[in-house]
């Protein structure tokens, strides 16, 4: 029987991101499409979004096989009324959806901090 350590509770990390003013939702998805944690509004179907997000994450990861390109760290996509950020971690991809009220610089910092927490917690051994 295993139990998650405190640091492994990525749900709290995602909750923190989702609480930022202007953020519509956040998701941590494994490369196979499994949702590890999510905070999405009920009108966004999590199954479809996770499949798309995981495929996008892999596509961005695989750009390192293209000539002149290396591994991706973070991608920011600007839309007409909002922003999406995708960041990579050892266990999967962090996806944050925000409307145009969000403060871009602060969101960047928050995403980087979240990625750091996820990475650090996954290096800790699990309690067995």
């Amino acid at each position, binding site marked *: 029987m*295993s139990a998650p350590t405190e640091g*492994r509770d*990525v749900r709290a990390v995602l909750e923190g991101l989702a609480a930022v003013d202007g953020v519509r939702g956040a998701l941590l998805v494994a490369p196979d499409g499994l949702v590890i944690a999510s905070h999405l509004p009920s009108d966004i179907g999590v199954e*479809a*979004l996770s*499949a798309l997000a995981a*495929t996008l994450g892999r596509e961005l990861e695989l750009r390192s096989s293209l*000539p002149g390109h290396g591994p991706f760290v973070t*991608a920011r996509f600007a*839309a007409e009324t909002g922003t999406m950020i995708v960041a990579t971690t050892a266990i999967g991809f962090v996806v944050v959806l925000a409307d145009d009220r969000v403060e871009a610089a602060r969101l960047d910092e928050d995403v980087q901090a979240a990625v750091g927490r996820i990475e650090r917690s996954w290096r800790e051994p699990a309690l067995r």
Partner: protein
Amino acid sequence: MVEDMKLRRLLPPVRGRKRKPSAVAMFRDASRHRDAGRLDDALNLVLAGLSEEPTSLMGHVLAGNLYVAIREIGPARTEFEHVLAVDPHQPRALLGLARIALEENDALACRILLERALDRYPDFPEAEALLEVVQSPAPATVPFPIPPPPLVLPRRARQLLLVACDGTLQRSAPSDGDPDRTAQHVHRVNRLVTAILERAELGRLRGAMIGGVEENTLMRCDEHASLAVTFPADLPHEAGWNEVDRLWRLVGAREDAEAPHP
């Protein structure tokens, strides 16, 4: 009495012997590890379960997904193919193989696999969402009523691509460096992001910045085309955006050249 003593001598070793968990129990434990993100532990348990019950399709699907999760695509493909050889309509194996096909730039194979899954299981949101992405968009308009001029690679830029909304490469520089393959990558990123933004009701994609360790790709997009320029990471973003916006105007004075940068 004698019988009782005989039994007592026998019982402790029986009580102490740990029963080997069943394959199903190992798969269940593996799912728990996987849900918590402990992918290696989960895969080890699934493989142990499969050594007990090698014919378990559930086990092979789990193994396939876990191999994808740890980015080992060869073994993942073997697992999914094994499942489909036994059950040609297993939806998760079809989805898994479809995603591998998409990664390998085989949109046709991806589409066929997804359609096969949806044919049997019409309520399959993951397959439906990916099928939307790989279906070729009907070119609503000619991307460039006037052919764009040749584009010169900006100073310090590594690569420049102008890709139409149907994925065809319009302009590229330099000519080496497999621009067609990179154009397909830009197209897939564009399609996937557009599908996500639509679901989140954030409007159409206008631009992107894909940050790498050594380089950044800056993109301007509209419903007709995408312009992607890759610069070394040490180039200040503003300098890169100035170049991208200048080129974006050059290829057709796109209306959003003044939109804020991502």
